[in-house]
C-alpha cells in the first residue's frame, strides 16, 4: 500500500483530487455520441407514459448466464459473472431457472434501510446507488425481499441494477428473449368504458326512471331484482314463475361474466364510486366488523323477515331501491327514504365500497350465483412484479387482492365470489399480469383449476 506523503499539505490535496476524479463515472464512447431524444407523443400531455422496466419470463429462461456476463462487463469492465448485478439461479431438481435482479420498487425498502442514504429513486423510476456515499455495508440486501442487491464474493462490493441508465445490456443480449424492456401494457380504456356504463345505468334507473332496478319493464321484457324476488317468494309463499324468470336474467349475466352488475351497473355502486373520489383519508373498520359473510346473513335475514312479516321488509331500506325510487326527477319526496343513501354512502370514509364488501344482500345473491361462474381474474406469476408494484391491491375497491401475499413474492388468488368484476386491476396492471380467464384455464404456477 502506498503511503501518502505527509510532509507537504499541497501534495495531499492532489491525492484527494485524484481520488475524487477516479470516483466520477467513466464516460464511454456510447455516452459521448448524440442520443436520439425520446419522441413526445400527443397523449403524453394528458397521460404521461410510465417508465420502462425489465420484465423477466422464467418460462423462456434457459439459465445460460449470458446476462450475468454481459452485465459484469459494464460494472467492472471484466467478464466475471460474480461482479454482475443480475444473478441467474438454477434449480437442477426442478429444472428451472430464475434471474434475480432489482425490480426498482415503487416504494424501495433498500432506500429506507440504507444507513448512509446512498440509495435514491430518480424521477425516471430508476433506483440508484450513489457510489460516493455507498459503504458496501449490505443493508440494502438485508432489507430487500428478493435480496436483489448482490455482494460479490471477491471484492465484497454491492452491485445493483441501474437499468444501464435506460438501455440495459442484458435485455439486448438475452438469447431466449426471457428479459424484455418494456413500458408494459396497461389497457387504460376499461376505466373510461366502466364510468360510461355506470353513468348510463344511473341515468336510466334513477334519473329517467324508465323503471327501477327492483322491477324493470320495457315492452315484453321484464327484469327484476333477484333478492327482491327471493323475498317476494318468501312473503307470498308461492312461486311466481314470471317473476322468477325475470329475476333469472341477472343471475345468468352473473354466471356468464361474474358480478358485473355490482361493478358496472349498480346505481348505488356508482354513487359509492363517486363519493370515493372525494374521501380524503380512510379510517378503516375495526377488525371484528370486517366479515364478508355478513352479507349472506343479511340476505337470510331479509328473506326470513319477509316470510314472517308478509312483505319485503328489507326492500324498504335497500339503498339501491331507495336510490331508484326516491331520487328520480318525478319522485315524490319520501323524506325518510332520502336519508338512507347518504347514510350508507358515508361508510366510504372507512373503506371503499364498505356496503358492497360486508352488507349488500343483492351482492350476496349474485355471489351465490357466481359459484357457477365461467370467468375468473388471475394475477399471473410470470409477469407480475409482486412486492415492487402492488398497484392491483391498491386499486381494488373491494380489497380482495392480498397485498401481503404480493409482498412475500406470491401471486395472489382472487376470490371470485367477492369480485365485482370492475376490472380495475386488469386496467391498471402495468405488466399485463392481471387478466380475465376462463375458470378452467391455468395461468400461475401451482394454481389449481378452481
Amino acid at each position, binding site marked *: 500500500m502506498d503511503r501518502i506523503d505527509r510532509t507537504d499539505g499541497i501534495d495531499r490535496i492532489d491525492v484527494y483530487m485524484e481520488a475524487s476524479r477516479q470516483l466520477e463515472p467513466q464516460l464511454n464512447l456510447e455516452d459521448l455520441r448524440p442520443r436520439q431524444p425520446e419522441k413526445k407523443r400527443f397523449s403524453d400531455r394528458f397521460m404521461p407514459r410510465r417508465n420502462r422496466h425489465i420484465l423477466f419470463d422464467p418460462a423462456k429462461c434457459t439459465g445460460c448466464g449470458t446476462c450475468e456476463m454481459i452485465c459484469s462487463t459494464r460494472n467492472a469492465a471484466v467478464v466475471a459473472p460474480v461482479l454482475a448485478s443480475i444473478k441467474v439461479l438454477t434449480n437442477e431438481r426442478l429444472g428451472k431457472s430464475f434471474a434475480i435482479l432489482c425490480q426498482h420498487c415503487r416504494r424501495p*425498502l433498500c432506500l429506507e434501510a440504507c444507513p448512509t442514504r446512498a440509495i435514491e429513486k430518480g424521477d425516471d423510476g430508476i433506483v440508484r446507488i450513489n457510489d460516493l456515499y455507498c*459503504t458496501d455495508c449490505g443493508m440494502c440486501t438485508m432489507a430487500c*425481499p428478493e435480496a436483489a442487491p448482490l455482494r460479490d464474493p471477491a471484492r465484497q462490493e454491492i452491485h445493483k441494477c441501474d437499468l444501464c441508465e435506460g438501455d440495459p445490456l442484458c435485455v439486448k443480449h438475452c438469447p431466449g428473449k426471457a428479459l424484455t424492456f418494456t413500458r408494459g401494457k396497461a389497457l387504460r380504456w376499461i376505466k373510461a368504458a366502466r364510468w360510461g356504463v355506470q353513468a348510463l345505468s344511473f341515468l336510466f334507473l334513477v334519473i329517467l326512471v324508465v323503471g327501477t332496478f327492483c322491477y324493470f319493464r320495457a315492452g315484453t321484457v321484464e327484469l327484476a331484482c333477484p333478492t327482491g324476488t327471493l323475498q317476494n317468494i318468501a312473503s307470498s309463499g308461492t312461486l311466481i314463475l314470471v317473476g322468477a324468470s325475470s329475476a333469472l336474467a341477472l343471475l345468468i349475466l352473473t354466471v356468464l361474466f361474474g358480478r358485473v352488475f355490482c361493478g358496472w351497473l349498480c346505481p348505488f355502486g356508482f354513487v359509492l364510486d363517486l363519493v370515493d373520489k372525494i374521501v380524503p383519508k380512510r379510517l378503516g373498520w375495526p377488525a371484528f366488523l370486517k366479515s364478508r359473510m355478513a352479507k349472506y346473513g343479511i340476505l337470510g335475514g331479509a328473506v326470513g323477515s319477509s316470510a314472517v312479516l308478509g312483505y319485503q321488509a328489507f326492500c324498504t331500506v335497500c339503498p339501491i331501491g331507495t336510490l331508484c325510487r326516491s331520487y328520480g326527477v318525478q319522485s315524490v319526496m319520501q323524506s325518510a327514504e332520502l336519508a338512507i343513501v347518504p347514510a350508507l354512502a358515508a361508510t366510504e370514509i372507512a373503506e371503499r365500497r364498505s356496503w358492497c364488501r360486508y352488507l349488500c344482500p343483492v351482492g350476496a345473491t349474485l355471489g351465490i350465483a357466481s359459484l357457477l361462474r365461467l370467468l375468473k381474474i388471475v394475477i399471473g406469476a410470470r409477469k407480475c412484479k409482486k412486492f415492487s408494484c402492488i398497484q392491483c391491491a391498491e386499486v381494488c375497491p373491494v380489497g380482495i387482492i392480498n397485498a401481503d401475499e404480493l409482498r*412475500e413474492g406470491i401471486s395472489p388468488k382472487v376470490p371470485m365470489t367477492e369480485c365485482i368484476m370492475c376490472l380495475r386491476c386488469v386496467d391498471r396492471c402495468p405488466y399485463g399480469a392481471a387478466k380475465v380467464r376462463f375458470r378452467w384455464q391455468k395461468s400461475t404456477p401451482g394454481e389449481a383449476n378452481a
Partner: protein
Amino acid sequence: MKPRRDRIEEAKKLSGASGCVECGRCVAACPMAEMYADFGIEMSPRGIIKKTLVGEDVVADRNIWFCTECNSGTDVCPQGVSCRDLIRKLREAAIEEDVVENARRCETCGRFFLAAPVEGFVQGRLKDEPANVLKALETCPSCRREIYLLRNA
C-alpha cells in the same frame, strides 16, 4: 481447540491491526455512526483495534457485533488496516467458541449470517412495514433468493 489468545493474535496479523496509527479516519467513515444512537469509541473500529492491541478479551465483547462488515474503514485507512477482516475473524472465533448470543442464524439453512444489533437496525428502519416483510429478515439473502425462485419459476 486453539486457545483464544492465539485466535486474537491470528486476527491481528491477518488484518494488519498492529499498523494502526489511531488517526480515526475509519471512525469518520464508519456507517455505524448513522446507525446507532449510542455509537462511541467502544464499538468504533478504532476502539476495537485498540482493545485488540492492548490484549483485552475482545472475542467475548458485545461491541464486535455492531459492525456491518462494510469496506469503508479499510478504504480510508492510511496504513491499510482492514477493520472488517479483524472483526470478521473475531466473530469467527466467537462462533467457534460458541459465544453466539448476538449472532443470528438463517431460519432456512441454519447458518450464521447477521449480527443481532444490525438486524435490530434494519428492523427499526422498516418498522412501518407489514410483519411479513420483516419476516424476510430471518432468512439469509441466498436462501431468500432460492425461496423466491421456488415460488415464481
